[in-house]
């Protein structure tokens, strides 16, 4: 077995205690939720924490509530499986339940949390490997920072100075499209920001989260009565795998297929979910015709520039972005037509 290096586990049992713990550890601890990402990273040696703050005892982080005026609040420690079967989620955001059921595998979903999925470490072929493997390849940008800042070795994109490891969260694109915001709790603060601003286009420091902060809650506004949303992805296998490309789309569709609003978020290509603004512009205020769908797909394709740091080819992943957008828009249109 791969043995984990020793570390201490601190388990605060309330938000208040958590806040104190975050202050006490002074940003020197890793936050553990379900562990399905972090424990892998510790086993691979990409994360070597001395202290781990485990959130499992903070009951406030395990709630799902819906208030008509406020919308849906999902605690960061709710497991993906719990969220998938939550009556509130199923009633108000079926697409959110659906996306949960496409992530990894059932046993992972029983343990993995929403907070963990949103904070999922960025991924790259040259990074998500054993310590031995990475040493053999000669380290990389993401790994060497901040230990050794002089490395300029990006194996996926030689010459690049900026790490472009991929944001593979499946929940992020959809939740951003749905206008989610996140509540951040730190040793000194308790604030909310739009999920779209939670991500930073940097493969190393990819979250807008200080080391003494944790993501505590996701807040989804009450859906528009004509809102339709879906998440679709391409992956090698129908379970276990991370996406090769994904989209989260939310539309507000009028009876005559007039698209009042459109949010198209592309995942699994760049270091952060990418909003296909040009594609949204194509659709907003227009009828959801075949032509507009195709235009939106083309615009989405031009929004992304994958690099060879994941499975399949770069060209394939890029092509799939457009296809996913096209197919998802068609599906949402036909759902709409059926009602």
């Amino acid at each position, binding site marked *: *077995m*791969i*043995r*984990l*290096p*020793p*570390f*201490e*586990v601190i*388990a605060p049992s309330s938000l208040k205690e958590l806040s104190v713990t975050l202050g006490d550890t002074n940003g020197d601890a890793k936050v*553990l939720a379900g*562990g*399905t990402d972090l*424990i*892998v990273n510790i*086993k*691979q040696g990409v994360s070597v924490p001395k202290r*781990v703050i*485990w959130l*499992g005892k903070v009951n406030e982080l395990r709630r799902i509530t819906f208030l008509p005026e406020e919308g849906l609040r999902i605690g960061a420690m709710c497991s993906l*499986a719990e969220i998938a079967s939550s009556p509130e989620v199923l009633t108000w955001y079926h697409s959110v339940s659906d996306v949960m059921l496409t992530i*990894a*595998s*059932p*046993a*992972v979903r*029983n*343990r993995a949390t929403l907070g963990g999925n949103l904070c999922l470490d960025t991924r790259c*072929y*040259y990074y*998500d*490997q*054993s310590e*031995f*493997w990475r*040493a*053999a*390849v*000669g380290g990389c940008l993401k790994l060497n920072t901040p230990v050794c800042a002089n490395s300029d*070795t990006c*194996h996926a994109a030689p010459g690049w100075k900026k790490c472009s490891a991929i944001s593979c969260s499946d929940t992020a694109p959809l939740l951003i499209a749905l206008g989610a915001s996140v509540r951040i709790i730190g040793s000194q603060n308790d604030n909310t920001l739009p999920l779209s601003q939670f991500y930073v286009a940097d493969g190393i420091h990819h979250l807008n989260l200080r080391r003494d902060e944790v993501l505590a809650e996701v807040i989804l506004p009450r859906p528009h009565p004509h809102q339709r949303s879906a998440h679709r992805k*391409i992956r*090698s*296998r*129908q*379970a*276990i*795998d*991370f996406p090769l490309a994904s989209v989260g789309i939310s539309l507000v569709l009028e009876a005559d297929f007039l698209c009042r609003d459109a949010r198209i978020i592309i995942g699994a290509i760049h270091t952060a979910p990418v909003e296909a603004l040009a594609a949204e512009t194509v659709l907003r205020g227009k009828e959801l015709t075949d032509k507009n769908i195709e235009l939106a797909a083309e615009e989405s394709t031009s929004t992304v520039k994958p690099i060879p740091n994941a*499975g*399949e*080819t770069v*060209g*394939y992943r890029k*092509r*799939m972005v457009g*296809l996913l957008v096209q*197919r998802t828009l068609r599906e949402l249109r036909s759902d709409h037509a059926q009602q």
Partner: protein
Amino acid sequence: MAKPLITLTVNGERRELAVESHWTLAEVLREQLGLTGVKIGCDLGDCGACTVLIDGKAILSCLTLAVTVEGSEIQTIEGVADKGVLHPLQKSFLHHGATQCGFCTSGMILTSKAMLDTQENPAEEKIREHLSGNLCRCTGYKKIFEAVQGVHVERDESTSSPIKVDGVGQVTGAAQYTDDLSLPRMLYGKILRSPHAHARIISIETSKAERLAGVFAVMTGNDLPVKYGVLPASQDETALCVDKVRFVGDGVAAVAAVDEFTAQQALELIDVRYEVLRPVFAMDDALRVDTPKIHEETKYDNNVAKHVELEFGNVEEGFAEADYVREDEFYYGASTHAMLEPHSALASFEPSKNSDSYKNGYLTLRSSTQTPHYVHRTLAKILDMPAGHIRVIKPYLGGGFGGKSEPFALEFCAAWLSIRTGRPVKITYTREEVFYSHRGRHATKMWLKTGVKDDGTITAVQYKALLDGGAYGSYGVVTSYYTGQFLTMPYKVPRYKFESTRVYTNKPPAGPKRGHGAVQPRFAFEAQLDRIAADLSIDSAEIRLRNLVMPNSLTVNSLRITSCGIKECIEKVLRASGWYEKRGKLPRGRGIGLAASAYISGAGKEINWLGLPHSGAIVKIDRGGGVTVFCGSSDIGQGSNTVLASITARTLGIDIGDVRVVEADTDLTPVDLGSYSSRVTFMAGNAVLRAAEDLKRKLLDVTADHFEVKSHELSATSGNILVSDNSERRLSFIEAARMAEAKFGTLSSVGWYAPPKLGGTYKGAGAGPSPSYSFTAHVIELEVDEETGIVKINKVWSAHDCGKALNKTLVEGQIEGCVYMGLGEALSEELTFTRGRGAAGGLLKSSSLLDYKLPTTLDTPPIEVFVVESIDPEGPLGAKECGEGPLLSVPPAVANAIYDAIGVRLSSVPFTPHKILSALDEKVRSKENGMRNSTMFVEVPAK
């Protein structure tokens, strides 16, 4: 700091445990509580073998810290049976043959149990979804679904004997695999691996590691410098590298320490200085004389490891006689076994009582090996110890598929570290190390030329192959022959010529994987035959039926075919699939394809050419009526113990439940060469049959005396020896056995098997002959998403001629497993490497079960199996091979179905989505779909 105390309820028992914060639940359950039914297959959450239930929910114990489940109720496989009575799910798994190697079984049963606890009678789709994180490498999942669905079906348990004689241990967690074993004072070993693909070792400094507290010994290549290799012709490996490293992951040094973490840390303190050499990654580069040699000692001036050229008849005449000749090129990517159990070896050394030299001591090695005999003889050679002082035992084994069929570094290292420390030493590979050990499918470039008459009759075949052998020889010499020798079946090839070249490259060594050597050329041939059929407007099935080999015939390269059910196999799958209604007639995007194949039932020649039996067995009858079979064969999950028990039980007319099998222990069991080349049922089966028949003769003899009849008037059945025409006159098996013991002395007999003289007289004629060949046909129906390039297999019909099914469930399981593995190779599995010549090149990218894509339950289609019985004249009770052959024709059937679906011919395995899209794009660009110019194949220079 004191360890935190946590309280857990484990299998209903409240336990207070002191655990370190950083211990995983898997560690605590396996090592602190001895619940070794919790299996570690990947250790990174990708396989599901470590699944346990926490408060009724399936979770992965390898990714869960023990302290985070404080207060929970935990159930492991050991807690599923109730006070010695099996749970219905466990019974159902046994009844349906849902276990093969058993390594995924605890995870499968627990995950299924969690589902069944919340929903009754789930549909198959639900079961697939629920088990989608639990990988099984053996079964193709079919029998697992059946077991879960059939859990509440009433069965008459008095007549339903267990499918597998050793299955109960697998479903209860009692089965002990090598890594589950521990001995008092046991140390843990770890191997330091080379970060360079090709480098000279300048020096290795181990003193810092030796000084680390808890480290007991450090060894390097110089401790065991004797070369070995499973074949006498390629002795090119050492336990650890001596002078050079030849791939990223090659072993350089090893340590034994008090625990695995200390051993891991000690590796980091070993300082190895290398002179980095230019690596050779591409096969074409390996052929060049201006690239560095990976093995200096070879007779070639490039990196050719083996070159074979054979011609049978004059192919040029054959092509001249043909009405149509077609040439194509193909590529088959490297794939690996990915058995769920990582390699593990546990050595324990006992010093000599009257000599200080270790060479007079005694060594016991328990190892996850398919070939205890080869490990045994190689250990004796490397350690320079008498083989009689070495005992090799194979415990329960979690899948092999060829990946454990030769000696491995960890076996020598564990042995040597145990000798050096005087303590038992266990080494278990991480999943990543399993990938580096490899010995899997050779990446192969192929060129194929076939001539046919207008009616499709084959006139000549010529084949060239270039095989990527990776860093060492392994079974590569055999592979170099096998790649060519089997193209003369299952179709008549009157003239045949092949050339094959295996090269060394700086990559993990390739070797034998299920269907050894024959899989790549079978893909090429079946794909080309399909193209020829289309070119000549002959139905794909028809062209095959017109060319079939016949029973009791000889191929042009002198392979002796005896029993042969190929025609029936093809007819069965055509009929069942509705071939004639579907081929060419399904809507665009959907297609159906056919392919057929043949494979050996064991190699006719023993690797070491010693002229000794290939299999030996002892059968012993106890005075209490129990029968024990002792045979060196290795049950690796395929069920060979059950087959041997079955042959014995049928011969002696007793219940299979009264037969015990003692297997794979070089001290206790006569030599069997091992579980490889599909030889066990045929060869060990014949040895056991012979021994059992000898005993039967004695029983009949005393019974004949007793009733004053002739022996041939008696039969042994249902636990009795009876006069055939009068069931009143009978002795029970026990009575007869006692009388026989009184007359003949202790009842025990030996049997052995050596194949008859087979094959031609030409050089190389020893590779290819087998006492019998199995035959297979597959029809595969699929659909291709032309926008994503993703292939969805809808159904597989598979018919296999296994001679005689001694256990139909096991035969089906082998066929289903072959189909599963073949589909993985066809669509998703490939070893890929980082590019570049510098330090970053040559690293295996797919070195985890996340990146190496074994199909999940959701990627595996329904499989319908037909068992064809041709009753082999020399097989035990008519049986022959079924464990490998059914893989061969899977990839070409997929390729041929893809053509039927979307009109493109794929020449490169695996058929990944982007290759399919590129082929479609290519087709749009140029409507021509004829022959391309030869660009892929580089001529092999003469030596």
